[in-house]
């Protein structure tokens, strides 16, 4: 197997640390503005009636009824998420019991916890590894805006500086019932998408859904 010759292999742990530090500084410098939320679908709904073809409806139903979550659980909200998966607030009745370790097999990222600058490149890498279509739920006050730690030196003020977010669930931590309500809102959003009907228009523009 040919290995490209311009790739540098880092061998000592201090060089590895330095490379990672540089990456973190780059992410920090590039994350001044929030990434706009993907809510263009709200305008369209007001402007025109959405006509879904039956293929669209079936695809949307399949996608929203089996959302598989990628693991990204930094902090305390993780425990409310796990309690939501637990026996009392059973999330597997919504098809979401699978917590996939590999982001390549997931289509939903529930960001449960405070994001720090050191963790930011890791979250972005996981988001990039997820295949389309993918959605993000920002869970908790720390994920929306940095929460109680906003004035700290190492905390990113909200996940929407790093990845685009679809649904925001407030709370510190949000109760499992609140999280399930957030998931249901996401399911309503997915029900209005037009994966097949829009495909020719988007392919012409050179973008994917």
């Amino acid at each position, binding site marked *: 197997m040919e290995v490209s010759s311009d790739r540098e292999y880092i061998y000592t742990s201090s060089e590895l640390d*330095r490379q990672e*530090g540089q990456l*973190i500084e780059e992410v920090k410098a590039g994350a001044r503005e929030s990434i706009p939320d993907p809510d263009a679908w709200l305008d369209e709904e007001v402007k025109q009636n959405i006509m879904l073809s039956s293929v669209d409806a079936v695809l949307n139903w399949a996608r929203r009824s089996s959302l598989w979550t990628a693991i990204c659980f930094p902090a305390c909200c993780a425990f409310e998420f796990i309690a939501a998966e637990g026996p009392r607030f059973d999330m597997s009745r919504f098809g979401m019991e699978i917590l996939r370790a590999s982001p390549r097999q997931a289509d939903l990222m529930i960001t449960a916890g405070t994001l720090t*600058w*050191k963790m930011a490149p890791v979250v972005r890498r996981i988001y990039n590894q997820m295949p389309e279509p993918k959605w993000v739920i920002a869970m908790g006050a720390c994920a929306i805006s940095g929460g109680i730690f906003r004035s700290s*030196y*190492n905390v990113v003020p909200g996940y929407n500086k790093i990845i685009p977010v679809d649904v925001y669930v407030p709370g510190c931590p949000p109760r499992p019932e609140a999280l399930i309500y957030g998931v249901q809102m996401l399911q309503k959003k997915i029900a209005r998408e037009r994966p097949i009907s829009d495909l020719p228009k988007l392919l012409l523009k050179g973008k994917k859904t």
Partner: protein
Amino acid sequence: MTVALSGKDLAGQLEEKFPGSVEETAPHSLVVKSNSLLAVAGYLKDTESLAFDYLNYITAVDYYSYFEVVYQLTSLKHNHSIIIKTRCYGRENPTAPSVIGLWRSADFQEREIYDLMGIKFEGHPNLKRLFLWEGFQGHPLRKDFIQ
């Protein structure tokens, strides 16, 4: 009940063995000069009647004109404890000796103090930043840190 030993009595014992090492005493703590810290710590650990074999914590406080590194030691055998402090003067390059040779629990804690306060510990085998990344400018827990 863990007895907090009196700083004065212990200071008396230490002055006999290591004259000039104790700077100040307080009811339950004493301040030791940083160049005699290792000798004093070794004596505290190895003497039978004191036997301080458990290091509770190491921390550092920024008092503008000096940094104070605080150690609390406990003896599990005799159930008594003492607080030892040492001062590092100068804000550019404060240093203190590392006690990792005596108590290995100092490993991560001294790295944390280096990371957040900037105090270098001589003799630590792996003094790198622990919580923040390589390339972070400054030491956040100092009083004059500007974000």
